[in-house]
């Protein structure tokens, strides 16, 4: 079964700082990759996804993520964060074949200080 690792569970940074959240997965086959975000008091929503093609994908609100197949990684980045980016961020992986089960990491709680 696939597993997803996210490090640095709690991240605190100031507005305008750059953000990078790491995501590594263990699965040998073809995968679909996702980043979900949960703002305070809101439900999980999709931030961006990778299915195929250009390994650098752009999502909503200025976020981007890069798929590096050789490193089994899908790191999320934003060059300049805003207070409104305070949220919990989850990386998720789904095998392209097989059980199609979406496996989530433990999440990163990001707090942006104005």
């Amino acid at each position, binding site marked *: 079964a696939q597993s*997803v690792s996210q490090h640095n*569970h709690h991240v605190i940074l100031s507005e305008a700082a750059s953000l990078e959240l790491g995501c590594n997965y263990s699965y040998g086959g073809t995968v*679909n990759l*996702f980043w*979900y975000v949960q703002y305070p008091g*809101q*439900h*999980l*929503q*999709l931030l961006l*996804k990778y*299915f195929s093609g250009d390994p650098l994908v752009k999502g909503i609100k200025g976020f981007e993520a890069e798929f590096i197949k050789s490193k089994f990684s899908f790191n999320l980045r934003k060059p300049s964060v805003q207070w409104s980016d305070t949220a919990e961020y*989850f990386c*998720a992986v*789904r095998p*392209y074949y097989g*059980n*199609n*089960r*979406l*496996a*989530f*990491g*433990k*999440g990163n709680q990001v707090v942006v200080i104005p």
Partner: protein
Amino acid sequence: EAGVAQSPRYKIIEKRQSVAFWCNPISGHATLYWYQQILGQGPKLLIQFQNNGVVDDSQLPKDRFSAERLKGVDSTLKIQPAKLEDSAVYLCASSLARDSPYEQYFGPGTRLTVT
């Protein structure tokens, strides 16, 4: 477009009691999922339906959890009897279909506290 609806939003019960959660997916979505999210962890899939059939319930504790999706639309998840470790947020999600490239849309969740 209306999103995934869940009720209740919050529930507090004592251990050994039973509880049920309800989910109404996005109209037209064939696939429905129930996840359990324990505090400090990511969501974990409990069960997946394709229309009204179960396609993956391998992570559902079947001795106490059950779920159904009658008529291929709404779904209910039941816990009987509840244990302290069942305290979690129960998320419902839906998607047009199971496979790539269809993404899952999540509801607001039901926060269950077992005392």
